[in-house]
């Protein structure tokens, strides 16, 4: 076995869709990369009652090789296990056949394995340490200034020179307006086709409630916010409020980002559960942390335009949108290993897929919601049997029946009204 190249990732997704046609849907993403590549995602799920959705993406940073391999394997494992009626075992972490069936039957799971195929291809064939995409628009013709850091291109405090404190702006972590930097954030939020594809998935699959963006390395599970410390007491102190522009991104000062305490608990609880499943495989202990902090060191690491913050902020920015619990998982605990050997990568795949299966299992709606969904589906099925769509129109027979009934009932109603009037 070897790492998947960019052609193989798309072929694998297409193959899974054609091998399991009633369990999956092949999603062709609408935005081609600057080098003309078309990306695909795979939607897994059989239920018409899709109450809860999960979006898993990887390959954002070109040199973080293992992400797409992890997600292709995850999709394959779930489908193979479901078809075979079996559970899944990853080292010391196991899932029953019922767990697998519940995920496949009840979760709207979308797997988008290779967000940045142009960058990955460049990393796998030319310069392994490449991080960004391959958009040359801002490079001025200089090869090393090509590309945008896709994880600084999402619409969350993207305009960092305005939103953040000058000390944070010059911290070297937020993002960069210099195309020569590995943190170049692009010319506008969602300026890049790769991030537009992620936004398109959120816009078109309304049940998405959980999101993971896989990166490497360090062995951490990161959750919002990434712009500043979290606080649960002052809702007006938030990323939308322009009164706080120029004050974000520094630890220990007046500004901290508001997060609802129940949302914070939900984020931490799901992260802890994922961490436990990973640890169960072979004892790899991942660290759960808010992405603003650097675990073990204590210094802040403010960011702007990051995917997990954007996914989580959609609801805070517009309450009509559903809350999405957003995460970044930095897989691989070995420092410096963007490129583990394949032998090591296979072990990492098992670690992370165990965590992701648990993550998806936790997304299975509770029985209450199932019951409501089944009732709704059942009543709708009866309604459609009794009143099929072809009878509904103003010229259809149902309309005639209704008029006849109206005429028949009208005298009775008049009589009742008369009797009531006396």
């Amino acid at each position: 076995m070897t790492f998947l190249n960019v052609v193989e990732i798309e072929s694998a997704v297409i193959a899974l869709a054609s091998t399991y046609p009633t369990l999956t849907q092949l999603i062709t993403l609408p935005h081609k990369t600057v080098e003309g590549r078309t990306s695909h995602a795979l939607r897994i799920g059989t239920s018409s009652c899709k109450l809860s959705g999960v979006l898993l993406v990887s390959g954002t940073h070109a040199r973080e090789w293992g992400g797409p391999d992890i997600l292709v394997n995850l999709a394959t494992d779930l489908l193979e296990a479901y078809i075979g009626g079996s559970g899944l075992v990853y080292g010391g972490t196991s899932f029953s056949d019922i767990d697998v069936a519940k995920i496949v039957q009840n979760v709207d799971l979308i797997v988008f394995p290779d967000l940045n195929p142009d960058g990955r291809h460049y990393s796998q064939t030319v310069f392994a340490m490449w991080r960004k995409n391959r958009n040359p628009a801002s490079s001025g013709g200089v090869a090393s200034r090509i590309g945008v850091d896709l994880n600084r291109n999402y619409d969350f405090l993207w305009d960092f020179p305005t939103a953040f404190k000058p000390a944070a702006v010059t911290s070297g972590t937020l993002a960069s307006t210099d195309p020569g930097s590995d943190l170049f954030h692009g010319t506008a939020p969602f300026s890049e086709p790769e991030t537009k594809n992620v936004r398109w998935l959120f816009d078109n699959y309304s049940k998405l409630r959980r999101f993971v963006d896989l990166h490497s390395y360090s062995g951490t599970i990161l959750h919002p916010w990434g712009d500043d410390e979290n606080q649960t007491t002052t809702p007006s102190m938030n990323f939308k409020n322009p009164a706080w522009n120029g004050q974000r991104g520094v630890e220990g000062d007046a500004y901290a980002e508001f997060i609802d305490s129940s949302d914070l608990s939900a984020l931490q609880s799901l992260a802890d559960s994922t961490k436990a499943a990973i640890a169960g495989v072979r004892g790899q202990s991942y660290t759960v942390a808010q992405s603003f902090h650097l675990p073990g060191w204590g210094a802040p690491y403010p960011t702007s335009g990051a995917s997990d913050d954007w996914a989580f902020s959609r609801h805070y920015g517009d309450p009509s949108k559903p809350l999405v619990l957003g995460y970044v998982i930095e897989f691989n605990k070995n420092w410096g290993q963007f490129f583990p050997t394949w032998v090591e990568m296979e072990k990492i795949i098992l670690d992370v897929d165990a965590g992701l299966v648990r993550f998806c299992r936790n997304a299975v709606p509770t029985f209450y919601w199932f019951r409501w969904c089944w009732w709704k589906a059942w009543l709708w099925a009866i309604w459609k049997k009794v009143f099929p769509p072809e009878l509904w129109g103003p010229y259809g027979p149902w309309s005639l029946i209704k008029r006849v009934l109206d005429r028949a009932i009208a005298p009775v109603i008049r009589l009742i009204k008369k009797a009531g009037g006396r």
Partner: protein
Amino acid sequence: MSDRSDVKESIGRDDGDPPSDRFAIRIEVTRESFNKLLREYDLDVGDRPLVEPKAEGAGTLLAFAPASQIKELEAAGYRVEVGENISEIGRQRQAEVGEGDRFEGGRVAPLGLGMKPGQKRGGTGPGTDEPER
């Protein structure tokens, strides 16, 4: 960490394509010098910086840098330990990337690595996805 002789003199990172090789480096930092480093140098710290804590308020920052930047850091007084040529490791690892298309454009399904107890094998071929229960 390997010998300093591994550090090759190479073209500046803004001048060529492909860019210069990067080396794994370890830099002794305090909280203050850590912030200064990130602020003043366009240092490649991986996806997020990783610092191995040592004494109170001190640690070792793990990063990647081309030879020219390592010289710059040393000239500025930072204690830098130079390790492997990570770009070279990447080049070696490129040999572990698939060639061609093992899934034949979508005609051959992948097989998963997870164990499926009680199941003889995984993928069952096109059009055969009805679960047997």
